[in-house]
C-alpha cells in the first residue's frame, strides 16, 4: 500500500518509518505533505542538538510554570506535567472546513436531542432510540425532566474526540458533553510554541486560538437572566485537589472571572451568593466544572461536599444559569453515541458529515454475539467510563484479559460497546535526538451560545509509548500544539478575533 516508507531526503527523518500508518506530516511517498513543508524544512534546518535543546526547554518551562494535572490514586508527588511534544500537528484549511461544519451539525443535533429527551421524547416514541437506553444512561437525570435551560441551550461547551484511521478518513470517537477538559493546554501549548519556534510562526498562516476565553465568557454572559445588565460569572471548581485544577484556575484568570469552590457559595432568598470580604454578592452564571452528581446535595448525591445545597431550585427558578446544563450528560453515554448518526438524521434530516466509528452495541443480540467471538480484534469500552479506564484493546491484550471482559460484558451488556481497533494516524514526535511516529487523536472545542463557534485547532493528544493507542494523560499520553492553517476565507474572521483578544488583554491589563 505504501510505496516508499522512508523519508530519505530529510536528515531529521532519516530513519523515519511510516510502518503502514497514515502520517499527518509525511505522505506515502516519504516526503512532507504540502501543508507542512514549511515546518519540515525548518525542523530540518535546525543545527545538530537544537531539537532536543528546545524540547528540554519546553519541559522545563512546564515545570516552572506549574502547568500540572493531578493523578488520582497516586499519593506521592500527585502533580505531574502533561508531557508536551514540540512537533505540531498541522491541519490544512480545506480539511478543517469540513470538520468545522461536521461538528456544528453534530452539536446542533445533540442539543435538540437532549431537549427532546427531557420533554416530549419524540425520538423514543418514533422508535429511533430505545427507551431503556436512555433510562439506563448514567448521565440521564430525572430531576431535569421538564426543565428549560436559559436560552434553550443544554450543552454550551463540548469537546469532541476525533481520530483519523489508516483509510485517511476522520471519525468521531466520542462526545464529551459534561465537563470536557484540556482547553488550557491548547492555549498554553500555543504560547510555548511561539517562544520555541518564533521563526516558523512568522512565516506560517496559523489560525489563532487565543480568543477562546473571550468567546467562552461571551457564551456564559449570554446565559444570564435578561434583567441583569452586567452579570457576575464564576467558575465553580471542586478545588485544588481536582485533576483539572490548573485548567479551572487558568480559565478563570483568562476570562477575568472569579474562581469559586462550593463552600464559597450559599443559596439564600432564592438566589446564589458568594461570600466575600465585604459581605455577600449575587452570582448570575456558573460555569461549573463539577459533575451533576456533586452539584447540589439536595437534588443529587446527598453526600457531596463539593456542591451548593439548594442550587438546583435557584436554577429551575431561572435565577442562576449553569453551563453545561445539568442532565446534558445523557448524550455523553457511549451507547447513546452509537445512535448519534441516527439522531442527526432524525433532527436535521441530513447525513452526518463526520462519521462515527462503526460501533457494536452489546445490548443488541446480533452485535453481542459478534463482539464475543471477535474480542481479540476489537476495542471494548464501558459506556460511562472516561480517561482510558474500563477499556479493552483486544489486539494488545492477553487471553485472560479478554476472558475477563467477556464475563463483564455478559453480566451487563447494556454497559458495553465495541469498535474495530483503529489504526490511529501518527505525527512525528521527538524521541531522544530524532523523530518517530506516534499515534494521535484530536479534541476540538465547540462553544454553543448565540451561535456555534468551533475553536480553530484543539488538543492533539499523543500516545508517547511506542505502538500505544491510548492517548489519555492518565495513561502516559502527552500533547502537541495543533495548527489549523488559514486561507483567504478564514483570514477576516481571524483578524477580527485577534483584535478582540487584544482589546480584552488591554482592558485586563494583561500582557498575554
Amino acid at each position: 500500500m505504501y510505496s516508499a516508507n522512508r523519508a530519505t531526503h530529510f536528515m531529521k527523518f532519516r530513519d523515519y518509518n511510516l510502518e503502514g500508518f497514515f502520517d499527518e506530516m509525511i505522505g506515502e511517498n516519504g516526503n512532507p505533505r504540502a501543508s507542512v513543508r514549511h515546518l519540515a524544512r525548518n525542523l530540518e534546518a535546525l543545527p545538530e542538538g537544537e531539537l532536543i535543546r528546545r524540547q528540554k526547554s519546553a519541559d522545563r518551562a512546564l515545570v516552572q510554570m506549574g502547568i500540572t494535572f493531578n493523578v488520582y490514586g497516586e499519593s506521592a508527588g500527585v502533580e505531574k506535567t502533561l508531557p508536551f511534544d514540540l512537533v505540531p500537528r498541522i491541519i490544512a484549511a480545506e480539511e478543517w472546513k469540513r470538520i468545522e461544519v461536521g461538528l456544528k451539525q453534530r452539536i446542533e443535533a445533540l442539543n435538540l436531542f437532549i431537549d427532546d429527551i427531557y420533554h416530549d421524547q419524540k425520538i423514543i416514541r418514533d422508535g429511533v432510540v430505545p427507551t431503556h437506553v436512555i433510562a439506563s444512561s448514567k448521565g440521564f437525570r430525572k430531576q431535569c425532566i421538564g426543565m428549560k435551560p436559559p436560552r434553550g441551550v443544554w450543552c454550551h461547551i463540548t469537546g469532541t474526540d476525533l481520530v483519523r484511521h489508516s483509510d485517511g478518513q476522520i471519525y468521531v470517537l466520542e462526545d464529551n458533553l459534561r465537563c470536557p477538559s484540556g482547553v488550557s493546554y491548547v492555549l498554553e501549548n500555543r504560547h510555548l510554541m511561539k517562544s520555541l519556534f518564533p521563526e516558523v510562526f512568522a512565516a506560517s498562516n496559523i489560525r489563532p486560538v487565543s480568543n477562546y476565553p473571550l468567546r467562552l465568557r461571551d457564551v456564559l454572559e449570554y446565559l444570564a437572566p435578561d434583567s441583569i445588565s452586567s452579570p457576575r460569572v464564576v467558575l465553580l471548581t471542586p478545588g485544588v485537589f481536582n485533576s483539572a485544577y490548573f485548567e479551572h484556575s487558568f480559565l478563570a484568570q483568562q476570562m477575568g472571572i472569579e474562581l469559586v469552590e462550593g463552600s464559597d457559595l450559599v443559596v439564600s432568598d432564592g438566589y446564589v451568593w458568594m461570600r466575600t470580604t465585604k459581605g455577600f454578592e449575587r452570582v448570575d452564571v456558573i460555569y461549573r466544572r463539577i459533575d451533576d452528581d456533586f452539584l447540589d446535595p439536595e437534588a443529587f448525591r446527598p453526600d457531596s461536599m463539593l456542591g451548593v445545597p439548594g442550587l438546583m431550585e435557584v436554577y429551575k427558578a431561572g435565577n442562576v444559569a449553569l453551563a453545561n446544563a445539568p442532565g446534558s450528560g445523557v448524550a455523553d453515554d457511549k451507547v447513546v453515541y452509537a445512535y448519534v448518526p441516527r439522531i442527526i438524521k432524525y433532527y436535521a434530516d441530513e447525513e452526518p458529515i463526520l462519521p462515527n466509528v462503526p460501533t457494536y452495541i452489546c445490548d443488541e443480540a446480533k452485535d453481542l454475539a459478534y463482539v464475543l467471538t471477535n474480542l481479540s480484534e476489537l476495542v471494548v469500552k464501558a459506556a460511562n467510563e472516561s480517561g482510558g479506564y474500563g477499556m479493552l484493546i483486544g489486539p494488545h491484550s492477553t487471553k485472560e484479559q479478554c476472558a475477563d471482559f467477556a464475563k463483564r460484558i455478559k453480566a451487563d451488556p447494556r454497559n458495553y460497546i465495541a469498535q474495530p481497533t483503529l489504526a490511529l494516524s501518527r505525527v512525528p514526535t521527538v524521541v531522544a535526538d530524532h523523530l518517530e511516529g506516534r499515534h494521535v487523536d484530536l479534541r476540538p472545542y465547540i462553544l454553543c451560545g448565540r451561535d456555534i463557534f468551533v475553536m480553530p485547532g484543539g488538543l492533539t493528544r499523543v500516545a508517547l509509548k511506542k505502538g500505544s493507542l491510548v492517548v489519555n494523560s492518565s495513561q502516559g499520553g502527552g500533547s502537541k500544539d495543533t495548527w489549523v492553517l488559514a486561507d483567504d476565507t478564514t483570514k477576516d474572521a481571524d483578524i477580527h478575533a485577534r483584535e478582540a483578544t487584544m482589546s480584552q488583554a488591554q482592558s485586563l491589563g494583561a500582557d498575554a
Partner: protein
Amino acid sequence: MLSRVAESIYWMSRYVERAENVARFIGVNLTLMLDSSDRDQQWRPLVNTTGDHADFEKRYKVATEENVLLFLTFDRNNPNSIISCLRAARENARSVREIISSEMWLQLNTFYLKVNDAATGAGMDSAHDFYTDVKLSSHLFTGITDATMTHGEGWHFCRLGRKLERADKTSRILDVKYFILLRSVADIGTPLDDTQWAAVLRSASAFEMYRKRHGSISPKGIVQFLLLDSEFPRAIRFCLNAANDSLHAISGTPLDKATNTVEELLSGLCSGLASAGVDEVINAGLHEYLDNLQDQMNLVGTGIFETFFAKRVREPDKKTATDRTQ
C-alpha cells in the same frame, strides 16, 4: 474579594515571610558559630525562637547543629520548617493563581522547587549560600508582588500577612536573645558580647541601619531600634503601622477611625508603641512587654479571621438583590 481567596493570599505571604526569617536566623547563627568555642550551646535558642521547642524535644532531644538545621530546614513534619512553610505558601498560591500575577506564581513555584531539590540532596553546595538564597528568593517574591500585583484589596491582604509575620518574628528574636544575653550581665563589654549583640541585629538584617542610627551597640539601643523605630522596615512598630495601613485600606476606613474590633485593636497597638519609651519598657520588664505584645498580635490574627475569612450564614438581604436587577 472571596473570603477564601483573601485568606489564601494572607497565608501565602505569611508563610514566605516565615521561611525567610527562619533562614535569616540560621544564617546568622552559622556565621556566629565561626567565632564560638562551644558550638552546640548556640543552637537551642534558635528552636526557642520559632516556638516549636516541645515538638523538637520530643523528636530530636539533643540540640546539636545537625539536628536543629534539619528540624528548621527540611523537616516536613515540622510545620514551620523552611520547606513546610514554602510548601504551604505554594499550596495557598496555587489556590489563588488566577488572582495573583503569573510572575508571582512562577517565582514562588521556582523557589519551592529549588528548596525541594536541596531537601533531596541535589544542588545544595554550601549551607551559607543556601540560606542566603532562601532570603533572596523571598525578597524577590516580595519585590515581584509589589511590582506586578495591583495594589488593591488582594495586595493589602498580602502585605497585612507579611507585616504581621515579620513583627511576630522580630519580637521573638528580641525576646529570646535579650533574655539569653542579659543572663551574662558580667560579660557586657567583652568582645564576645559585642559579637552576640551584633548577631541579634543581624538576625533582623538591622546591623548596618542600627549603626547609622545609634552608633555604639547597647541593649537599650537595640530595644529602641527593633521595637520602637518607625522607619526601620523590620522594627515591630514599623511593621504594625504598615499592617494597620493595609487593614484600614481593605475596609476603606480612615486611619483615625475603626469600623470593627480588629481595626480598633491594631490601631491601639500602634499608638501604644508610638507613645512608649524605651526606659519604661525595660524597667517594666522587656520579656513581659513582648509577651503581652505577642498575645495582642495573636488577637489581631484571630480578629482578621473572624472579620474577613470566617464563613458565616448569610442574612437575607433583599435590598442587594433588587439593586442589582435594576
